[in-house]
């Protein structure tokens, strides 16, 4: 019974997004496509932070890896979008795995600082190799590099549908993971690491797996972002982009499958709305962070789940 309800809800969201494709005004159409790509990133972040309890401040490194894997391939090696997406996915996962090998020896605050430092080093590396990456200015990906087989990702409609397809796969994999035994072990690590260890699970490998999966998501999202919007710049690998998924997840609800999407959706439109009345949108981000951590550390869906909808995965 519960199984059907949760699956039904998630399929419903995907159906709703598909329906939106046919009725949406152009402006919101593009926005939602962007939000879906960012939501994949946030879902990945949520797998590390929300489920496993790994508060990372360095996810921009994984997002940036995917972004540049796809971007540089298309720009310098005439790669196509299919290769770019796969390369981005693998790059994000590989970098996350490599970072995890080191960083997971630490926990808590030290883990946050270590990930922050490595991500900052990654961002600076992008700037350092400015002759290839064009640094802050960024690279504009040629149209030929944005072809996914015969699909042109620079076309609005194709872009939306491909984003939706990627989002749907990511969402369902996330749902499956959250309800699988492995997902349960991840939550166990978050709740009580010592007890999980006593029960025979190795915290290090569980966390490393979670971080790697998280990196795969972030890398895929980065690659999709580069290919769909045709641009890869250093600012997309900066600290700001490590904070964004944290913000989305905190707002939507850490440890929920739909939470990252909801958070991305609300935050995107909040900043969008704020930018229309003032140019101080960073202020909105800052205030949102402080208010969320103060008054609603569980986020919207986390609170709803607590208040009754216990079956929410």
């Amino acid at each position, binding site marked *: 019974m519960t199984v059907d309800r949760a699956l039904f809800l998630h399929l419903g969201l995907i159906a709703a997004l598909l329906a939106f494709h046919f009725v949406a005004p152009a402006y919101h159409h593009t926005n939602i496509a962007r939000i879906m790509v960012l939501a994949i990133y946030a879902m990945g972040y949520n797998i590390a932070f929300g489920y496993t309890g790994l508060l990372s401040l360095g996810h921009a490194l994984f997002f940036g890896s995917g972004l540049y894997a796809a971007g540089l391939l298309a720009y310098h090696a005439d790669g196509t979008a299919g290769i770019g997406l796969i390369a981005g996915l693998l790059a994000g996962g590989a970098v996350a795995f490599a970072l995890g090998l080191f960083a997971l020896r630490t926990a808590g605050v030290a883990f946050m600082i270590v990930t922050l430092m490595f991500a900052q080093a990654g961002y600076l590396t992008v700037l350092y190799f400015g002759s290839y990456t064009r640094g802050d200015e960024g690279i504009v990906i040629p149209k030929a590099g944005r072809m996914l087989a015969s699909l042109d990702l620079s076309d609005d409609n194709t872009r939306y549908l491909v984003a939706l397809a990627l989002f749907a796969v990511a969402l369902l994999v996330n749902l499956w993971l959250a309800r699988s035994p492995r997902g349960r072990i991840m939550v166990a690590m978050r709740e009580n690491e010592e007890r999980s260890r006593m029960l025979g699970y190795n915290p290090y490998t569980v966390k490393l797996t979670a971080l790697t999966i998280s990196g795969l998501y972030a890398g895929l999202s980065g690659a999709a972002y580069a290919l769909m919007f045709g641009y890869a710049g250093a600012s997309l690998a900066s600290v700001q982009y490590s904070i964004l998924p944290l913000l989305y997840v905190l707002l939507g609800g850490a440890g929920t499958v739909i939470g990252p999407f909801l958070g991305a959706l609300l935050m995107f439109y909040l900043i969008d709305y704020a930018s229309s009345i003032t140019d101080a949108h960073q202020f909105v981000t*800052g205030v949102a*962070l402080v208010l969320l*951590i103060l008054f609603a550390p569980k986020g919207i869906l986390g609170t709803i789940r607590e208040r009754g909808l216990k079956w929410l995965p």
Partner: protein
Amino acid sequence: MTAAVLALTASGLSLVFGIMRVVNVAHGAFFMLGAVLAWFVSEWVPGPAGLSFAVALVVCPLIVGAIAAAADMAVLKRLNYEPEATIVATIGLLYILEQAALSFFGPDARPVPAPLDFRIQLPWFGYSGYKLAVIVGAALVLLMVWLILKHTKAGLIMRATQIDRDTARAFGINVDRVYAGVFAMGAGLAAIAAVLIVPIQQAHYLMGGDPLLLSFIVVIIGGLGSLRGTLVAALIIGLGDGVISTFFAPTLAKILATLAVGLILVLRPQGLFGKRAA
């Protein structure tokens, strides 16, 4: 010169971490705020540069300290100083402060006139008198912090709170007030450092990034929360920074520095010279 200012900034960070166990990501923003306020003071206070500088040196740390204390009481206290939540909150604070500086101060870098304008001319090289004064001033402030911590009642209370918050509370110490004071003091130290450096380096709303990174490095190398280690590390890094940047491009130097911090934290979490577990 760099070492002196760095030591001031880093000691603020170290103080806050040492006593409150709070990693203050907004520390660089407090530094920036000090510099920006110094510019405002130099604009509004008439008369010679020396006078406005003296005013800035007193007023800026007080304002920054007050903002920090308010932030502590309004936000950090409610989070119960839970380490991860406070980091998220100070990131939020960083955004708010940077945006405030951008909105009210603007995106341009602006100079503040130096209060002293003479050079000490030695036979083999000349040295700016102001830089020398900064070193002396920074050393004096640090000495004062040291004396306060070791030899006054306030310092005793701070150290008691550091060792055992609950016992300190049981002995009638108002821990909340101590924390607010320490957070304000840490931010104030960053502000003093900023006021001192602003005649040499212009005020800019994004200037907090580098001092934050360097302070992190200093505090981590010196051993988290150990003030003495912080001072030694600041000297080494401050002097070393010049050496490193003559050999490497600045970006590469920063890459190496950030990687070093990450690796040191992984391999020696108690810091290079720290003895206690962090």
